[in-house]
């Protein structure tokens, strides 16, 4: 409900005052009273005693970028697809770090299947029952203490897809696909796109300038680029061919959220600015179980378990200040056979940067 930005800033400013006066003297004590304090997490040790052996950390070009869930003892591992790029490895609880190959991807739920060369791994045990709201949920890491804890917040529901934004602007009076502006913080800027670059291709399709006649006047638009990008969500990558002076360059850009490019007063913006970082791909899921576990984007991709150590889902996104999403076990189990059988191969160039 707090909507206006200046108002919010005012509130924040006054809150800092309050906190300074009220909370700081008790600071040392305060941490010990938090839900996520080590003393509370320690109570979950028996819950993850077995399941932490079914967890991996996925590395991309040497950096940890996601968690993964072992689903077959022969080395098949589920993880969050949109975080993957470059050379992949998996770190196991027994400290083995093995190269991994991407063998399947389902875009609808952002689930990717990896394969490592290993035998006799311990796969997750799927929960057979639904997870009631208010249930404790544990996100195991590779150690004997859980990575994070939380509770189920809402009954599973569908999250509609959003259109990804590249973060460039064309000159509306101009013909062609010359970039007129690059928004700060956008995927376009991070990919190194510059003003005056001309976009020639997106995901292998040529960008055509479309000229229509409206009421006797010629109207130019770059509809084809919008059409190509519009089919992708925030967090997905597009491969572009651009012309810069005499050069032709190939660039991969990750699409972002419109709300994070605009100084808007929306609730979505509060989610972005107040709290930790969020997963880029956090919308467009067939079904998610929302929980209040505080995860970093790189903590997603692995199993989330109930108090009996059964896997109730795969963490798929840090979605907001109050929410993380998991794909429920029933949905994962329905798609798993197609991922394992090769019916859902990853698209060409999926791991390209």
């Amino acid at each position: 409900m707090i909507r206006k930005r200046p108002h919010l800033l005012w509130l924040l400013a006054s809150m800092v005052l309050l906190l300074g006066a009220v909370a700081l003297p008790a600071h040392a004590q305060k941490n010990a009273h938090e839900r996520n304090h080590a003393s509370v997490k320690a109570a979950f040790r028996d819950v993850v005693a077995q399941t932490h052996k079914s967890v991996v950390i996925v590395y991309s070009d040497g950096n940890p970028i996601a968690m993964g869930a072992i689903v077959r003892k022969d080395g098949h591992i589920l993880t969050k697809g949109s975080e993957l790029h470059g050379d992949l490895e998996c770190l196991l609880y027994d400290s083995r770090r093995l190269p991994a190959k991407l063998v399947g991807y389902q875009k609808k739920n952002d689930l990717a299947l990896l394969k490592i060369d290993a035998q006799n791994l311990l796969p997750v045990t799927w929960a057979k029952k639904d997870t009631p709201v208010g249930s404790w949920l544990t996100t195991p890491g590779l150690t004997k203490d859980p990575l994070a804890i939380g509770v189920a917040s809402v009954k599973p529901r569908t999250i509609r897809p959003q259109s990804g934004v590249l973060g460039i602007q064309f000159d509306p009076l101009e013909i062609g696909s010359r970039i007129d502006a690059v928004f700060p913080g956008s995927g376009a800027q991070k990919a190194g796109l510059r003003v005056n670059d001309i976009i020639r291709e997106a995901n292998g399709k040529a960008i055509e300038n479309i000229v229509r006649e409206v009421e006797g006047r010629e109207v130019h638009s770059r509809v084809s680029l919008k059409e190509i990008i519009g089919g992708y969500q925030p967090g997905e990558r597009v491969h572009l061919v651009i012309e810069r002076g005499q050069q032709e360059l190939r660039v991969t850009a990750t699409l972002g959220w419109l709300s994070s490019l605009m100084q808007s007063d929306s609730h979505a913006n509060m989610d972005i600015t107040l709290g930790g970082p969020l997963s880029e791909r956090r919308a467009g899921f067939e079904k998610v179980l929302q929980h209040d576990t505080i995860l970093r984007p790189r903590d997603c991709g692995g199993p989330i378990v109930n108090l009996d150590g059964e896997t109730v889902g795969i963490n798929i996104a840090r979605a907001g200040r109050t929410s993380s999403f998991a794909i429920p076990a029933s949905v994962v189990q329905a798609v798993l056979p197609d991922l394992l059988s090769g019916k859902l191969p990853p698209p060409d160039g999926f791991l390209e940067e």
Partner: protein
Amino acid sequence: MLFVRRFVLFVLLLLLAAGRGQAAEIEQIFAGAAPESVADLKTMQKRVQRITKNAIEATVAVQVGNAHGSGVVVSKDGYVLTAGHVVGRPNLDVLFTFADGSTARGITLGRISGQDLGVIRDSGLLKITDKGDWVTAELGDSSKLRPGQWCLATGHPNGYMSGRRPVVRVGRILVANSMLIATDCTLVGGDSGGPLFDMDGKIIGIHSRIGEELNQNMHVPVNRFRRNWEQLAHPNRKRPFLGVRGGLSKIGADLAEVHEGSPAERAGLQVGDIIIEFNGVTIPSFGKLAELVRGAKPNDVVTLHVLRGGETDPAKAIELQLKIGGK
């Protein structure tokens, strides 16, 4: 045989003792201790699930104009607690949406909001005017809260979304005093006005605002609603006032300011005066004076005993008559 019977009895007693121990232990955990085992966690989970049903059904989404927030129904006749900044002003149309998606109409009543000496006030009251049988939640007591105590938050983060019931979060109290509760139940815009519950399912606070950190989630203590109920429920009724600002005296209510043209000035009160008696009741501090004035009605005439000019002997207090103002 006797041995077996004795043995069974012994085991039964042991079980009973264990059961009792566990019950006492779980109350200790809810009161601020950390759980120690999966058994503790399961007992907590059972309780959370039990109180969640009513908590969710009593939580409403609130729409006032274009503003979206949350609230909680506290009486069968449709009073709804919310945050002051959700109310806007009295007598505006409100659309309430319940957990099952059904809706009802109502109006905004009073609010107490704004900043005063670094303290933020943010309580508000709404009323459902449609007829219906509302699920309600009970008011708890926010005066005895302690850091570490477990709590449950519901509300509509990011505003009401069709197909999503009120969203549950579980956390612990980090700071609690008469003006503010801070918890690690994460909140965001749209949660404003939603309820914070203790582990008995009673309302202990109303969501108000957040800071940048995930453990900076602020709630208005529910006792502030109790204390200001008349003002919240009757926003147009005149409120009693004196027109003074208090100091920090330890022997009575000393006056740091006497506003021009106020009832206090008309009665002859001056800056530096220390009020030690109000209609025969001893006044140990400014807080007590404020409480008695709140309990009075505009136009009541009261007798005050006042120490003036540095006098400290109560026997030498002067007596004044004062007519309580209304604003």
